[in-house]
């Protein structure tokens, strides 16, 4: 009896043969400048959710955010950062990049998802990031799963890339899930930040393809 994996593959081939017009196509992506992400997925998908799971301390999530900020700015775009626990420190990033950032300092973590729902619909943002790394588990459990699908629909309209930083896999509608698992050592403090960003160790956990438009 064939195993389930081969049956799914056979079913996919059958569906693609019967409905070629509905075959999934590669979505537009926003390059991150991080070698492992760009090589594996081309970047973070636009008009979709990307979940970055930060499984260990000092794993480089701020480097990823800062790198995205510089990439977005270099392309003349804007980025919004919804900081659920008020962790971002602007003094570590160059002022020309900060000019393109709208920083939302939530006074309570519960404000983060509603704020993302507003900003994700705004076509002025090329990227919207939401930092939920330190948000308490009871707060995250109160977010209904439908809220993530709602956010997915919101960015589909605005074509923004929505990046959510979490400490454990949380978002069912994420098209791309990246894992940051390695803690950096103190020697990283002596390295150039651009080099740290470029070589950030990232694992690709999930990549769903977008439906053909």
């Amino acid at each position, binding site marked *: 009896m064939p195993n389930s994996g081969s049956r799914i593959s056979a079913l996919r081939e059958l569906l693609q043969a019967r409905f070629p017009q509905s075959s999934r196509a590669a979505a537009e992506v926003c390059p991150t400048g991080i070698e492992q992400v760009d090589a594996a997925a081309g970047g973070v998908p636009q008009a979709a959710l990307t979940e970055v799971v930060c499984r260990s301390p000092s794993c480089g999530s701020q480097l990823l955010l800062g790198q995205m900020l510089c990439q977005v*700015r270099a392309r003349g775009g804007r980025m919004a950062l919804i900081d659920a626990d008020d*962790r971002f420190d602007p003094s570590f990033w*160059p002022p020309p990049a900060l000019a*393109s950032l709208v920083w939302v*300092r939530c006074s309570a973590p519960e404000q983060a998802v509603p704020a993302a729902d507003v900003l994700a619909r705004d076509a*002025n943002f090329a990227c919207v990031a939401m930092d939920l790394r330190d948000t308490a588990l009871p707060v995250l459990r109160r977010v209904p799963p439908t809220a993530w699908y709602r956010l997915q629909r919101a960015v589909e309209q605005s074509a923004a890339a929505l990046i959510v930083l979490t400490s454990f896999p949380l978002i069912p509608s994420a098209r791309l899930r990246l894992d940051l698992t390695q803690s950096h050592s103190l020697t990283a*403090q002596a390295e150039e930040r*651009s080099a740290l960003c470029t070589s950030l160790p990232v694992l690709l956990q999930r990549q769903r393809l977008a439906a053909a438009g």
Partner: protein
Amino acid sequence: MFGVLFIDEFALQAVLRLEHGSDDQPIALLENDARRSPLIAACTPAAAAAGVQLGVTVPQALARCPTLAVRAPNSAAEQEAQATLLAAAFALSPAIEATAPGIITAALGGLPEDRREPALRTALESLAAAGLRVSGGLAPTPLLALYAARAVAGGLSGGGARGDHALHLGIAPGYSQARFQCIRDGRAFLSPLPLAAADPSPALAAIVADWGIHTLGEFAALPKADILHRLGAEGLALWERCAGETTRPLNLATPAQEFSAAFESEHPMETLEPLLFLLRRLVDRLALDLQNAALAARELQLLLTLEDESMHTHAIRLPQPTHQPDILFRALVTYLEHVRTVAAVVALALAIEPTRIPQRQEGLFDSALRDPHGFSESLARTAALTGPDRVGTPEVADTHRPDSFHLATPPEVLGDLGALRADHALQPGMALRRYRPPIPATVELLGRTPAFVWAGTVRGRVGALLGPWYGSGDWWQTDRRWEREDWDVELENGGLYRLFRTPGGWFLDGEYD
């Protein structure tokens, strides 16, 4: 050529257009006098269908239609309706006369002949969208144009003349359709109209009726000299009106110089819906005034008067001047969605600070906002969630004091980014995820250096460290003076942290990430 915009039952329409959902309700308007028992002066088709007649008392009307709602005339509503009519007329022509309440005459001689009807049609459609059921007349004289408009509004049988035609516009159910009529042959149009259409005095109407004359055509067929001889100047004026010979210069009105509107509601508004409905009407009219004056709104000033006689005021600065009614209204909705007043709203006033429409060419490498008004609205809605001082673009202060920054309004245009790559490349090390406020820590020292750290959920033996770095500042201000000793520590169980010591003890400043 002249065009006339005419509102039938002007006082009733003026009141009803500011009431949400009143289109198909039985509503009657009282006469505007101080009698003890005022009579019904006008009513909606739904009320008329229920048997309400004009000139009856309120109890009589209620006996026929128990669900009848009765309204008093509202001069503010009439002024607003007249201003809306005037604004729509100024989009037709600069030569406009406010002939009477609900009647505007426009000289359309400056428009090419083939553009007159489309222009009038556009004006009627915009007025229909503003809640006014208006009829229009297009004719060689102002009086003839008025008769044409009144004929189509009142359903008088004036059509049928060769070359004349009427256009039907979609309108709310229950009312006769608003339309306009273009008159080319005045005599043919006037001839079948009843004599009442020419507004004879009651005495004159009685005399002429005794003669067996009932239409304008029959009266105009009488010899002009005999009419003057028998009925005097009043009769001559009536004859000239019946013959369609009366013309006159227009008494020109001036366009709006101030862009403000106010309205006092008969009923206190406790929810947002009726307030927004009312505001939409005012915004549409003011936007039309701005467009006619080739200006744009820079700031909206809203004043709400509450039932407890207190006031709520707010000014909304627009990110870019505009005269688009949708954008102006959206800015008000975004603000009002998050406003809670202590009492119901009884009156509102909206004033617009005008400015010239900006003309600007962007730089080749500048990147402007795709939708400035949408951006402003998103920020306002986010600020309503988090607090107004919690949203913005960070600007780092020129000081060594840690965590010194302020949030500025995001720039509309992002300038050159030449320094971006160089700045980014030169920054060393990882960035900090800062704990606000810093977490108090217990630190075990080995000599003068940290060896073990306990700070909330962060705890562990220090595997490697860098430091100390000493910093201090603002020594001249006792309340702002700071002094600290910073350490970068790597814990053996993972994680890079910044630790600092002040005279008040040890704290965990943040996680390098």
